[in-house]
């Protein structure tokens, strides 16, 4: 298992292999044992894998910068805020954004979210089967996010197309030229869309996050138009894709692990622990890119300033030194400092929003459909990078 994906002699790991996206844990566990610093064969970029190294890197933005320069453009022409800027400026932006994404602020979406979950389930329960991504994992978080932002829910398809055009352009990942071109085209469309929205909220303010961005002051001045665009661009990418991916990963795992599934269905008190442990096990956002600001040496490997280093949080989350019995999925894990939402200054701004969506989404599904399986004879399809189960056919007994 995993030999062809990971080459222990060279440390090369084929992170875009479909088998790896589908079932990464065995390969990652083999890699952790043999090789603290792996590399990506296409680019030669280094990949930090151990919990200790990963945590250290994420806590030291002055060494591991998020200012990517020309690397890894997601169709944007300026850095996305706050993800692609470093402290201290990044921290100043977080000061005005954090207050909008607290546990308390996100709690207000819960009733509508729950109702939406129930209506999505009601629409499919009698069929005894569904393709999970389209039926549940995509619409549930997307509607919640659009409502949270104050964006028009009827335009969900447009938002999804813009998000997909950037994250998964419609070309093979290896064809980098075509991918870059498609990303740039979609990027322009995103800027144009939000330009119009900024004008609309400036002219007619509402009680929503878009209006907040137009009105809020950063150290005594309003945000510039470009700053607002750079924030919205990131919200679109960060808020629409990640929860969808996590829901799919969770359900695929539970579909194949009946004891865990039964436990979650019978004992809702383990919901919180289950969500955290599945975040650890699946870590659907797998790799965070950084650029070195200085030369470093780690585990005998020298890395030069200017080089890209990838921080593999999905590997850190399986590291036995931090997580005893790391290969076991244990909803009652006493100590779970998983890095699925990152760490340090760039800790996921949307983590509280994501958690409420995951809890409500999982709870409502299991209340209505406690027992289900992957449709016999079918193989799910998972995208690399952000691991979205784009094809996840589930079946269950009709009641």
């Amino acid at each position: 298992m995993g030999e062809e994906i990971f080459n222990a002699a060279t440390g090369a790991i084929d992170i875009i292999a479909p088998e790896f996206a589908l079932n990464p844990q065995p390969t990652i566990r083999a890699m952790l044992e043999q090789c603290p610093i792996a590399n990506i064969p296409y680019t030669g970029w280094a990949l930090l894998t151990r919990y200790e190294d990963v945590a250290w890197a994420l806590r030291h933005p002055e060494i591991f910068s998020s200012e990517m320069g020309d690397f890894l453009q997601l169709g944007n022409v300026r850095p996305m805020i706050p993800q692609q800027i470093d402290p201290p400026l990044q921290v100043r932006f977080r000061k005005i954004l954090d207050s909008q994404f607290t546990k308390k602020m996100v709690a207000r979406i819960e009733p509508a979210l729950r109702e939406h979950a129930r209506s999505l389930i009601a629409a499919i329960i009698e069929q005894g089967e569904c393709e999970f991504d389209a039926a549940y994992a995509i619409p549930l978080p997307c509607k919640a996010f659009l409502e949270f932002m104050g964006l028009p829910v009827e335009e969900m398809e447009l938002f999804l197309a813009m998000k997909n055009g950037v994250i998964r352009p419609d070309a093979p990942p290896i064809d980098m030229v075509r991918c870059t071109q498609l990303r740039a085209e979609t990027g322009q469309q995103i800027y144009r869309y939000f330009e119009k929205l900024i004008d609309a909220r400036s002219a007619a303010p509402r009680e929503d996050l878009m209006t907040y961005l137009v009105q809020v002051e950063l150290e005594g001045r309003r945000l510039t138009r470009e700053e607002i665009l750079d924030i919205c661009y990131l919200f679109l990418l960060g808020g629409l894709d990640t929860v969808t991916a996590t829901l799919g990963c969770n359900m695929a795992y539970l579909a194949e692990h009946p004891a865990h599934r039964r436990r979650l269905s019978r004992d809702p008190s383990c919901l919180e622990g289950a969500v955290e442990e599945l975040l650890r096990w699946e870590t659907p956002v797998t790799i965070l890119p950084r650029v070195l600001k200085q030369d470093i040496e780690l585990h005998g490997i020298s890395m030069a300033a200017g080089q890209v280093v990838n921080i593999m949080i999905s590997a850190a989350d399986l590291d036995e030194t931090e997580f005893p019995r790391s290969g076991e999925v244990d909803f009652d894990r006493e100590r779970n400092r998983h890095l699925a939402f990152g760490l340090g200054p760039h800790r996921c701004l949307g983590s509280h929003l994501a958690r409420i969506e995951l809890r409500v989404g999982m709870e409502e599904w299991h209340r209505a459909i406690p027992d289900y399986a992957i449709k016999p004879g079918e193989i799910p399809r998972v995208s690399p990078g952000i691991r979205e189960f784009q094809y996840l056919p589930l079946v269950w007994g009709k009641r």
Partner: protein
Amino acid sequence: MKLCLESGLCVGHGRCYELAPELFAADESGHALLRVAVVPPELESKARRAADNCPESAIGFE
């Protein structure tokens, strides 16, 4: 048992006030605040749980 919070390390993951709301609260940006200075004996295991689950290791004891 005295509870310590290193505010400079806290980035607002919110694990502490989720797991031990008796001991921790959130400020308006979602960063942790201490509700008590000394942990009552019956809450000691909860306090340890919160400290163990803070990804930034911002919570300690004296």
